């Protein structure tokens, strides 16, 4: 079966996409950086964090690169003053939403939110901090969930459902009251469905999910297993 090839333009460069590829996939293949938070290779994209929005010529709407498929001749702009401003504001919104105290976080230096801010030149947060009171659940033998540092990207929910197949995690409530939960919102340590595989910890972009007893320098997340598992399973089935 021949695969259709689509040629289009990203930031003035001619690029080509195989069928099924998203703008983000093609940009990565061509070393064109597009910031992302909720997207992770090996998980279904959800288009939720909105930092990967790109401009498409002659389209009034901004579209998320992680789910948008290119069409022939499409002209994509991944970086503009307007996009930078939106990305900055969205990042600031995330910092304001919960209690991200980088200085005392075990993920300090390995955090995707922190480096997003650094790369976008976010030197301060212009929207008022909301300072919600949120719990830390350390009932699991090996892992901790700190809701103060969660950005609700749903990577943990997806990896647990799509890859591990346990579906221990889900999201409760809605709006700013959303919270990731295990089983019936019970302490993680009492979850009957959790297999303690730790995939959720390693896909978590921030210090919300961490391993117990790890020092700052040690708590580096490893996500390489994901595309590998995915390939293995595809070849298996």
């Amino acid at each position, binding site marked *: 079966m021949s695969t259709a090839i689509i040629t289009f333009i990203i930031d003035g460069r001619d690029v080509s996409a195989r069928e099924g590829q998203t703008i983000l996939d093609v940009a990565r293949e061509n070393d064109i950086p597009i910031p992302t938070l909720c997207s992770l290779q090996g998980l279904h994209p959800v288009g939720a964090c909105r930092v990967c929005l790109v401009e498409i010529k002659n389209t009034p709407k901004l579209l998320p690169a992680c789910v948008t498929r290119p069409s022939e001749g499409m002209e994509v702009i991944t970086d503009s003053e307007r996009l930078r401003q939106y990305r900055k504001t969205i990042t600031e919104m995330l910092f304001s939403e919960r209690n991200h105290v980088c200085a005392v976080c075990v993920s300090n230096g390995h955090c995707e939110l922190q480096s997003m801010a650094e790369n976008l030149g976010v030197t301060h947060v212009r929207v008022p901090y909301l300072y919600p009171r949120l719990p830390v659940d350390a009932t699991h033998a090996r892992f901790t969930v700190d809701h103060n540092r969660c950005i609700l990207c749903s990577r943990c929910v997806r990896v647990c*459902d799509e890859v591990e197949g*346990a*579906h*221990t*995690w*889900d*999201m*409760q*409530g*809605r709006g700013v009251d959303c919270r990731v*939960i*295990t*089983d*019936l*919102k019970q302490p993680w340590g009492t979850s009957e*469905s959790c297999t303690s595989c730790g995939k959720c910890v390693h896909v978590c972009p921030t210090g919300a999910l961490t391993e117990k007893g790890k020092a700052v320098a040690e708590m580096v997340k490893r996500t390489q297993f994901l595309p590998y598992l995915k390939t293995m399973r595809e070849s298996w089935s």
Partner: protein
Amino acid sequence: MAADSSKIAAPSADKRWRLVDNVMRRHGYRADGLIESLHAVQESFGYLDDVSLRFVAASLRLPPSKVYGVATFYHFFTLKPQGEHTCVVCLGTACYIKGAQKILDRIEQDYGIKPGETTPDNKLSVLTARCIGSCGLAPAVVIDGTMSGKLTADETAEHICRCVGA
């Protein structure tokens, strides 16, 4: 049917579980019957608790977290038992323009409860609705399932007093 052969036993002998099970069976114990099933639980028991959520999750073969996620996403569902009497104040635009907030303030003043709360003696719960579609009669309140329109804060207070006192 495969689902029937491994049917999940009801949590207790309470006959209301049969009503819940009927709804789930009507939907073939399929996942898409989840919201309808939760409606059935709430209609039968007044609220959703861990026992009923686990029962529904097991019957529909759904992860508990997913059921909990759905139950908390929809504001029509409540995970707390309600008081003996309920007063739903509509907060649709028309009702808001015509003073629904004053009614809520009055209830708070009289009973010390805010929307979503129940009095300590468990007599009265006050809730809000985003719009009950009775805008022509704004402001509207639903007391123990009966809708009344065009009420002032005083009239509502009297009305509640009659219901709770009775």
